[in-house]
């Protein structure tokens, strides 16, 4: 049966037009994303594994090697069992690190452009013969139906059609970050077509030639040599096991497989589904192979078994079935060529062209890169066509594919190193791959070229190695992989890894996460943009920065160090899809400035924490255990009822816990990464000045955040790197912020009650003091009524006014002392603290204490210098003095003396109240500042006096201490902040470390 060449051309053209339409509709969104992103579509697109080798060549392979033909698809089935072990980790790595090709994966793990170049070179060399095989299969199948057709015209026409389709849809987008929905759907559709076509031909063979399953069983029973021939190669093991090994690796190491499985942004659920659906697809595809083979043998067809898929339905007289079978072959071949060329062209651009031509991309690198990739796609397809044309003899269709399989198997040791062996080194990988590739060239490629007439002479295994195993792949497989593994392991064990390589190894083993370069060399988004613009042009740099900012939800302005780090990270990821990971890193971080400095530590800690907090990180081993410990400690810090803020050496925030967020109203995500001084007022300036003050480890601060008044106590401790077992730069500081607002309010109430209690104690004295002038006023007023002399009357009236003035002074003094007064939170930090001359306040306190009946009998002498002033709350200072003088009077004998003096000591004033009383025993000294502790008889003391004195002194940033000797006397010292002349007062306060 013959079909016209024009008919075949039209069918092929129509079919590819249908593919165009499908891909176009998917790209436009007419076919919804939920359909193109369906796991079944993903599984079918993995069916690109089955090329014309499986479609046409499977029958010929089964005819010559029996059940060994199944090994080509049993290997991928075993690989699917290993999906959680191998595929999932590669998928996560590819997604997380934007690794869009096999070369990217190896270049990322083994850290080097040379690695990528080598992988790309081998992939290129191994792919060209494979592409040639597809063209060969399509041309041969077309000529089986149209024997007069020109192989040149068929080959060129097929190549041109494939180039057009690939350029239009496969290389339509530049970067892998944009999923080729149209391409994936088209490849899946091609899988359906080849499956349906092969099943249809199988059904025709089974029912049309064998008369059904019963007829086939009868045929096999009558011809036992057929099944014997079928089973013998597997039983004898010739090539079967090595082919399973080859196809196991090919399932994910072939460029087309890596591309559809990992580079197109598959979801993990799709991969889980495909782990079952993909081998089912392969099983169904292989099911018709044996019935077709036996049908051809039964029919006594003269053709090669490689074209039985066409010849059997043709022999049955069908006109449509051979065309369908032809279409299936075109599907199988075209899918392979399209995806392979896209993947390999991308690798070539990233590793061959861009590193040397990056500066030539000009102002529109997107467009130039796109056309570069398209040109490479065309070059690859026509290189395949050229290879096909130079072959003088064609062997079995599978042979070329097998040679490619052996080449790609050279990546297997390196891949296992990526996933499971952290000690594997770049030198080991390159050595193993280089030696394995050389063996492959000698044992597989040269013999192939010799067999197909490309090279003269006999370069087969028997000629080269003196051995012939009856098939072409086992010897090169065993030899090349043995050499590869031996060198890979040996060199890796002997050599060391660079820090970058070790870091990548830990990331690949999921024992670490990316922390990126040591520091961000740019101070703003604009600086990063300018750095990119020097290489990529202003427009592209702006577009990339804008894209990355949008993806991170950041704005251009006000980026902290942490934000800049995230921005650089995101830009690098995005560019990785465009240029590959190595170039992208070089573009974003052109040179490591060696700032193994403070910022790097803070950045790394913060980013480490950020990444570790991502869900489903999947850490294993000791990393997982350490992560558990980290999470526990993190939770403890987060839940502490006191505010915790950890700072890097440059005072940028690394940790900001929940209590601190509640107190300050600043969320951790807002504060994290910001330099302390850039935090909003009032917390930023206060925390910053406290962190910078090396003299104080603790301070009480009253502040107003606009919502309420707060009283906080700050503590700090430096984080010493040496204590963490590290050397070099310090880790920074930790600040604790204790919200004491409620406590301060309670203390203020206590102080006030103490004051009222002392007012009560003074009441009798007040009554006596007021009573004397009042008696005088009464007498004077009575005499005044009867005084006829006006001059005498005026004199008496003046005396009355004087006595009334005495009363007024006593009442004002008492009122001024006893009113509700200040607290730590009210009326405000600056409202009551002022420069207070000391001597007048001491005089006032003495006057008040004299109101006490007991105080009157004690001589109190103020010897404070007149020019000495303190920065204090006047009322509270008075309260300190009253409490101390009262105690001194109580302790003194009748007629005793109490001295009050003061002296300046640096930036402070030490006030002393000295008595010659009974003194304080040691056992009382230990408790004398405890609230409600008193040695006075019940009803005569509240036990609050000294506690209040200490509280007020601390509030002023001062201190109280006592020197006492029983029987000799007591001196109470109170340190308060010095207030110099108003111009210098602030400095003195600052130096003293007083409360603001």
């Amino acid at each position, binding site marked *: 049966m013959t079909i016209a060449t024009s008919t075949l051309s039209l069918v092929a053209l129509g079919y590819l037009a249908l593919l165009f339409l499908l891909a176009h509709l998917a790209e436009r969104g007419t076919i919804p994303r939920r359909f193109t992103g369906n796991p079944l579509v993903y599984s079918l697109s993995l069916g690109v594994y089955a090329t014309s080798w499986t479609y046409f060549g499977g029958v010929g392979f089964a005819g010559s090697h029996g*059940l060994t033909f*199944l090994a080509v698809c*049993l290997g991928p*089935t*075993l690989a*699917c*069992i*290993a*999906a*959680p*072990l191998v595929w*999932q980790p590669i998928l996560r790595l590819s997604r997380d690190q934007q690794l869009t090709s096999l070369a990217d994966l190896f270049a990322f793990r083994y850290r080097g452009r040379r690695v990528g170049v080598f992988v790309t070179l081998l992939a290129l060399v191994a792919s060209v013969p494979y592409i040639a095989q597809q063209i060969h299969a399509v041309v041969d199948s077309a000529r089986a139906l149209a024997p007069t057709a020109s192989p040149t015209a068929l080959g060129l026409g097929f190549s041109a059609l494939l180039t057009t389709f690939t350029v239009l849809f496969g290389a339509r987008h530049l970067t892998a970050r944009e999923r080729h929905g149209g391409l994936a759907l088209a490849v899946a559709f091609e899988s359906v077509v080849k499956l349906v076509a092969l099943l249809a031909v199988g059904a025709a063979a089974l029912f049309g030639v064998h008369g059904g399953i019963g007829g*086939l*069983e009868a045929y*096999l029973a009558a011809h*036992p040599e057929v*099944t*014997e021939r*079928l*089973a013998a190669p*597997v*039983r004898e093991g010739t090539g*079967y*096991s090595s082919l*399973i090994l080859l196809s196991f690796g090919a399932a994910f190491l072939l460029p087309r497989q890596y591309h559809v499985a990992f580079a197109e942004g598959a979801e*993990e659920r799709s991969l*889980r*589904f495909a*782990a*079952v659906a993909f*081998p*089912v697809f392969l*099983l169904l595809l*292989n*099911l018709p192979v*044996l019935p077709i083979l036996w049908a051809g043998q039964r029919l006594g067809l003269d053709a090669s078994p490689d074209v039985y898929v066409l010849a059997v339905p043709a022999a049955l007289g069908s006109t449509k079935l051979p065309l369908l079978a032809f279409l299936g072959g075109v599907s199988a071949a075209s899918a392979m060529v399209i995806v392979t060329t896209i993947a390999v062209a991308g690798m070539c651009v990233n590793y061959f062209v861009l590193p040397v031509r990056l500066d030539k991309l000009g102002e529109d690198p997107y467009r130039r890169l796109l056309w570069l990739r398209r040109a490479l796609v065309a070059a690859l397809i026509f290189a395949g066509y050229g290879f096909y044309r130079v072959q003088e003899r064609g062997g079995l269709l599978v042979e070329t594919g097998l040679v490619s399989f052996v080449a790609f198997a050279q990546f297997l040791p390196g891949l296992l190193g990526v996933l499971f062996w952290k000690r594997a080194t770049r030198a080991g990988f390159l050595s193993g791959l280089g030696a394995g590739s050389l063996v492959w060239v000698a044992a597989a490629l040269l013999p192939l070229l010799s067999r197909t007439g490309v090279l003269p002479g006999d370069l087969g295994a028997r000629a080269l190695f003196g051995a012939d195993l009856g098939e072409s792949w086992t010897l090169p497989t065993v030899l090349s992989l043995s050499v590869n593994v031996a060198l890979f392991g040996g060199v890796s064990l002997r050599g060391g890894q660079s820090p970058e390589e070790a870091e990548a190894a830990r990331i690949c083993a999921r024992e670490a996460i990316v922390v990126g370069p040591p520091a961000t060399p740019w101070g703003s988004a604009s600086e990063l943009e300018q750095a990119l613009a020097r290489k990529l042009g202003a427009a592209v740099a702006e577009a990339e920065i804008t894209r990355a900012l949008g993806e991170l939800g950041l704005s251009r302005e006000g980026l902290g160090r942490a934000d800049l780090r995230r921005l650089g990270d995101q830009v690098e990821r995005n560019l990785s899809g465009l240029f590959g990971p190595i170039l992208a890193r070089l573009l974003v971080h052109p040179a490591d400035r060696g700032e193994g400095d403070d910022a790097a530590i803070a950045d790394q800690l913060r980013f480490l924490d950020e990444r570790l907090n991502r869900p*489903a990180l999947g850490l*294993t081993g000791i990393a997982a255990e350490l992560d558990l410990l980290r999470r526990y400690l993190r939770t403890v810090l987060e839940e502490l009822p006191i505010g915790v803020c950890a700072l890097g050496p440059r005072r940028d925030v690394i940790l900001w816990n929940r209590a601190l967020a509640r107190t300050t109203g600043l969320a951790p995500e807002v504060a994290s990464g910001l330099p302390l001084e850039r935090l909003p007022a009032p917390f930023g300036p206060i925390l910053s000045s406290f962190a910078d003050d090396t003299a104080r480890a603790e301070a009480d601060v009253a502040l107003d955040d606009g919502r309420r008044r707060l009283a906080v106590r700050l503590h700090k401790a430096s984080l010493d790197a040496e204590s963490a077992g590290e050397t070099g730069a310090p880790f920074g500081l930790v600040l604790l912020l204790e919200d004491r607002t409620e406590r301060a309010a309670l203390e203020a109430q206590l102080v006030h009650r103490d004051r009222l209690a002392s007012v009560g104690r003074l009441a009798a004295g007040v009554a006596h003091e007021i009573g004397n002038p009042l008696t005088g006023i009464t007498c004077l007023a009575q005499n005044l009524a009867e005084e006829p002399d006006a001059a005498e009357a005026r004199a008496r009236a003046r005396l009355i006014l004087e006595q009334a003035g005495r009363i007024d002074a006593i009442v004002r003094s008492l009122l001024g002392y006893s009113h509700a007064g200040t607290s730590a939170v009210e009326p405000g930090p600056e409202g009551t603290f002022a420069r207070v001359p000391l001597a007048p306040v001491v005089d006032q306190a003495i006057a008040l204490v004299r109101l006490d009946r007991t105080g009157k009998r004690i001589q109190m002498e103020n010897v404070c210098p007149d020019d000495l002033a303190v920065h204090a709350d006047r009322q509270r200072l008075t309260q300190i003095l009253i409490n101390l003088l009262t105690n001194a009077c109580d302790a003194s004998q009748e007629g005793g003396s109490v001295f009050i003096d003061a002296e300046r000591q640096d930036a402070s004033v030490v006030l002393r109240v000295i008595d010659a009383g009974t003194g304080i025993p040691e056992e009382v000294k230990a408790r004398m500042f405890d609230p409600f502790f008193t040695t006075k008889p019940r009803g005569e003391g509240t036990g609050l006096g000294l506690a209040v004195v200490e509280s007020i002194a601390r509030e002023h940033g001062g201190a109280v201490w006592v020197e006492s000797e029983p029987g000799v006397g007591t001196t109470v010292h109170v340190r308060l902040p010095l207030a110099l002349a108003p111009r210098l007062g602030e400095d003195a306060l600052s130096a003293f470390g007083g409360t603001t």
Partner: protein
Amino acid sequence: MGIPPRASAAEISLVLLGCGAFVALSPLRLAWAHPGRTWLAPFLVWALLIALAALAARGERRGRGS
């Protein structure tokens, strides 16, 4: 005696891969690659391997769920 920790998806996969390799590559293959067996026998073995792949994928899903 403590409760043994739950096997990870990768561990399950490794064990199942060993089982699959045993069926496909060990001398056990003489049982299905025998001229006396039906020609569909290798495909039944293949179906068994697919069942192992399904088990491994189930382990992965369960692992993620937990």
